[in-house]
């Protein structure tokens, strides 16, 4: 090729990478796994199983009332203790996973849809469209999730649907702003201009360049959002504005445990722990996936 070597930065790959001598057929991303990520993955897997087949994870019946064993602190028989009706808390948490996750997914679905529609409109539109949509998003920001939930409950009454819509609409503006930012950044990028110079029509550019590049970093954000949505929904239920008892939904558990904080702290702490651990695991996994994606493309 050329007689002068390209003197690159030390350590930077120049030309062909040296051939590996001996390699198992292990994909690159597996080798990057750290114990924290593996743990997070296991936890998420646990809850997904809890959502689909809860009976695999516990032999107890979450609705079984047993008045001889009320308010027992955590022990070998009941790893997370029992509640005021003698029901096993661990079982209730496991069975509650389905409703909680569904609420979280539903709310995130609404939130993401709104965010993409508004964000893309604002990002791709001209100054006027952007201005109007951005004003609209500003208005949405003025309604914190919880207050929106309170308003909906005051008007429509407490229910799971109220939770889903309140969280979905309340968290949408944050995502919408992110989407808009991403779309604007890709719209103004060098490769979009290069594509225009090559003569590609606008629609093709949006489809092949703007949309994929704008959305890619956001997939992870939306995944994290599911965890956040569950946290918010549980908060609403904690105040007594969600699904009524004896539902084992995590927020409802929080609400039920409120009166027993001084006597049976585990009733409040354990469901909260489940929520926190699940959300944290999603966050860890999400960050890992994000690093992998960006490492291959954007480093």
């Amino acid at each position: 090729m050329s007689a002068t070597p390209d003197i690159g930065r030390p350590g930077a790959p120049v030309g062909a990478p040296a051939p590996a001598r001996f390699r198992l057929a292990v994909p690159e991303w597996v080798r990057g796994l750290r114990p924290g990520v593996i743990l997070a993955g296991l936890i998420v897997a646990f809850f997904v199983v809890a959502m689909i087949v809860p009976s695999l994870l516990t032999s107890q019946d979450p609705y079984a009332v047993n008045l001889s064993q009320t308010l027992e602190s955590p022990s070998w028989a009941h790893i997370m203790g029992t509640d005021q009706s003698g029901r096993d808390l661990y079982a209730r948490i496991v069975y509650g996973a389905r409703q909680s996750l569904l609420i979280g997914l539903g709310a995130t679905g609404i939130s993401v849809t709104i965010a993409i529609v508004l964000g893309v409109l604002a990002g791709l539109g001209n100054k006027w469209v952007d201005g109007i949509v951005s004003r609209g998003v500003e208005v949405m920001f003025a309604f914190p999730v919880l207050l929106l939930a309170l308003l909906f409950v005051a008007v429509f009454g407490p229910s799971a649907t109220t939770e889903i819509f309140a969280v979905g609409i309340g968290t949408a503006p944050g995502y919408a702003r992110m989407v808009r930012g991403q779309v604007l950044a890709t719209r103004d990028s060098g490769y979009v201009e290069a594509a225009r110079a090559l003569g590609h029509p606008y629609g093709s550019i949006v489809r092949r360049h703007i949309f994929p590049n704008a959305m890619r970093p956001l997939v992870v954000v939306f995944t994290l959002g599911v965890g956040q949505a569950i946290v918010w929904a549980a908060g609403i239920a904690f105040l007594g504005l969600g699904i009524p008892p004896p539902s084992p939904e995590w927020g409802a558990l929080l609400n039920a445990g409120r009166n027993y904080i001084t006597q049976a702290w585990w009733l409040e702490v354990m469901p909260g722990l489940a929520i926190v651990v699940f959300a944290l695991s999603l966050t860890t996994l999400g960050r890992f996936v994000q690093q992998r994606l960006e490492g291959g493309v954007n480093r």
Partner: protein
Amino acid sequence: MGTFAETPGTTAIGVKPRRAPWLKRIAWRVLAAIFVLWAAATFTFFVQELLPGSKATLILNQEHGTQQTYSAKELKPVEERYGFDEPVTTQYFNYIKGLAHGDLGTSYQQHKPVLTIISEEVGPTIVLTVTSLILAWIFALATILLTARRKRAVSALGSGWEIFSAGLPYYWLGVILLVVFSIELKIFPVQGGTSVEGLVLPALTLAIPLAGFIGQVTRDEFEKVLDQPFVTSARARGMGDLAVRVKHVLRHAVLPAVTLSGWALGALISGAVIVETVFARPGIGQMIVTAATNRDVPLVSGVVMLVAFIYVISNILVDVAYAIIDPRLRG
């Protein structure tokens, strides 16, 4: 490179910021703020209109503690009192007009003006919110100044703590703090009321997650700025590391967090609702939850509008602060 008004090759005096664009921007901001408030009010009003069934029926049922239907004759006086018999557009205009005069409506349940009810209860909430915001900033800044871009372990610790704490729900953190410090260790009172001791745990509950959030945002910016050449210039003049962080980097790095604070105030108030419930602390928190459960729509919308108002005002303040911190934005 270079500002628009300079001519290369000449040693022209720099551009002095003109007054007009600066004032114009403020005027635009105020106008935008009014628009946001109007839109919020409109949204709130129409949500109220979506109430299934008749509002008058709801009011009467709340009063009597029943769940029944009423005859038109029974409903009429209620409808007249609240103006439900008028066409929707008239109700809407009255609502907006009322808001402009500071009239947030009348509570269905307590039959008092909403503004009065709120002003009676809002004091401790404001104290809690402002204290939490200040604490959050202090925590975040301290963590960043001490742990950003230090030895790998320290940085990772700081960053990891921020991620962890930012995701903590108020209800859970509050309960943990309550159980550990009030119930078990008995350092703080369980029912603190409005005393200073009663403020500590609730304020910490609100401040820690927000500090994590502010910290995350600022840390990214901070580390980026640490690599900038002007920081090396300062070091090359003989400035020590901490001094560089405080005197040069900080000002550049806090800008995203300042923007955040505008939103944070509104979010803190809504978080206060939860925290006040956990710690049984007086404030609008318990009041508004009861109101929602009792379907007292005007009271809840009143609080919502109030928070929207606070949000809009704090955003304007944030813009002003932004322009002070970064003079390039002054126009």
